[in-house]
């Protein structure tokens, strides 16, 4: 059992995860194609990528569920292939798909996992009750999971990964499919985990989730890390936010564009929507001038917003190709990415 103990920080313990050139092929398809990754102990590390990028495959290799074809990975200095049993004492895994028993109740699930982890019968019962309380599942404790909502299932899944208080927790898309409220609850839970000293490696398809939670991010695509760094570093690599304007009168678009070029010193792009303009915004301060000019020349604005760089743009910039899907958007839609200036 991996009961947490704060022993002296050893050199190798600096890194909760060290992966070098991990490769995994399915048939001829290289799902993971030489991934490098280093996760510092006590941090949240986000792995960001579109469907099929190889996120789940990477986590499964790190969690000893899948043997790498090549490369090495160590968890707190323990090799995942040579010392799988040691590694399993150090990790908790919440898979992308529910890894709890559908036919059993929440309590029964937690008791069984606790017993497997070596807790006595009474300790297992106590632990289960404690976790159900913590994850707000007390009322549903006796119902079979078939009757659980997606959010409850996800919470139970996470609770089951925390029984042994593992120093490292893998979360594969912890919030995909959750509604906005449940989603931010999950974020709080994850933050709390790290406060109590755990290290978290999570995957996500949403830039804003990585933004909210992760200390560092690896962007992966086609089984490779295409960018790595802090959220700010990544966004900087993409460039600035963009200013998006919607004119009341589409006929004024040419003069508005000329004005933007003059005031902001950048080239404005006319978007496909009638009266829509997008312009890179390097210096937010100058937008004030621009708005004054608009007022003076009688150009009316119907709408205006600032769009932060999205995962789409990160991809476009880094890989030179689109993600091919609607990434970077939160389930609530793109609105949360925008900050209204007025």
């Amino acid at each position, binding site marked *: *059992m*991996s*009961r*947490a*103990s*704060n*022993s002296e*920080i050893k050199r190798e*313990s600096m890194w909760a995860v060290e992966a070098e050139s991990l490769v995994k092929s399915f048939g001829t398809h290289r799902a993971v194609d030489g991934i490098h990754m280093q996760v*510092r*102990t*006590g*941090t949240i590390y986000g792995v960001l990528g579109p469907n099929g990028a190889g996120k789940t495959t990477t986590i499964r290799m790190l*969690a*000893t*569920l899948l043997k790498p074809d090549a490369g090495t990975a160590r968890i*707190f200095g*323990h090799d995942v292939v040579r*010392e799988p*049993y*040691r590694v*399993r*004492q*150090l*990790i*908790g*895994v919440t*898979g992308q*798909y*529910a*890894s*709890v*028993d*559908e*036919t*059993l*109740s929440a309590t*029964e699930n937690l008791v*069984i*996992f606790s*017993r*497997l*982890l*070596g807790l006595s019968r009474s300790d297992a019962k106590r632990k289960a009750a404690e976790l159900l309380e913590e994850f707000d599942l007390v009322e549903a404790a006796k119902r*079979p999971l078939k009757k659980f909502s997606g959010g409850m299932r996800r919470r139970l899944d996470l609770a*089951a990964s925390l029984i042994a*208080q*593992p*120093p490292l927790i893998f979360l594969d898309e912890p919030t995909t499919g959750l509604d906005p409220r449940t989603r931010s609850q999950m974020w709080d839970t994850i933050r709390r985990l*790290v*406060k*109590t*000293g*755990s*290290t978290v490696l999570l995957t996500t398809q949403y830039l804003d989730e990585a933004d909210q939670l992760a*200390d560092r991010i690896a962007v992966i695509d086609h089984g490779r890390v295409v960018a790595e760094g802090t959220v700010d570093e990544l966004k900087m690599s993409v460039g600035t936010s963009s200013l998006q304007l919607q004119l009341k009168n589409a006929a004024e678009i040419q003069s508005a564009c000329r004005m933007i070029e003059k005031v902001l010193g950048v080239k404005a792009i006319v978007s496909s929507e009638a009266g829509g303009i997008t312009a890179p915004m390097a210096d937010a301060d100058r937008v004030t001038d621009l708005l004054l000019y608009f007022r003076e020349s009688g150009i009316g604005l119907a709408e205006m917003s600032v769009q932060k760089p999205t995962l789409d743009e990160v991809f476009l910039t880094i890989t030179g190709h689109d993600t091919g899907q609607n990434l970077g958007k939160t389930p609530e839609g793109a609105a949360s990415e925008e900050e209204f200036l007025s």
Partner: protein
Amino acid sequence: MSSQQAILPEVEPLLKNRVSLGQSVQNSLTMAYRGLLKLRRTPEQLIDVTLQPLIFTLMFTYIFGGAISGNVHSYLPVIIPGILVQTVITTSVVTGVQLREDMDKGVFDRFKSLPIARIAPLAGALLADTIRYAIATTLTFTMGYILGYRPSGGLGHVAVAAVLVIVCAWAMSWIFAFFGVIARTASSVQGISLLILFPLTFLSNAFVPVKTMPHWLQWFVHINPLSHLVSAVRELADSGTIGSNLGISLIGAAVVVLIFAPLTVRNYMRRA
């Protein structure tokens, strides 16, 4: 992030890299407990072990009773042991089917990521299923009793016969567990298993006297281990005889386990 104390793994020597035997047993018992819980939650899983003994006993007794033994009553000592063996052995197929279903579920990923004996889910499933065999055995004998079956060997010997059948079914379940481990889908496990089971149960002395069969078939029926098991049960129930048939049955069970347990475990470990 740097200000707080991080949870660090325990000092190295405390982390073992292998599971002790005691823990393996403990883990397997927990997994068996899980199997029982599941059984309680989904009682419909018990339909085969409850209905089959009832229906088959009734059907066979009244359809064949007159033709084979002259009357229903004198057919009972022949048919009850036959039905018993057939039902309980058929029940052991479910072990393989359910194992496959279980291994395909997400919860198996969690078992694999826990520091437990890797054999525990398999061992637990095989252990929990003995309950099913016990239910089927009890029901068959009860049904026989209701129809008028009064084994003269006495209750003690009937109990020995019951245990014998359960042990042999458990041994057979290794064969089906093997298919469960290597097959791709649960329904293919069912298919292959029944293909093996039908000839084994019907080409035996379970339902009709061997004398009535053609010679070439008698040869197979005589070497069929299930025939010996049926005979052993009859001998125990009728006269309390512990004879060579019982010995042969146990040896057969041991051989099956010796062959299929390592095969199953090896393939299971590779996949799990």
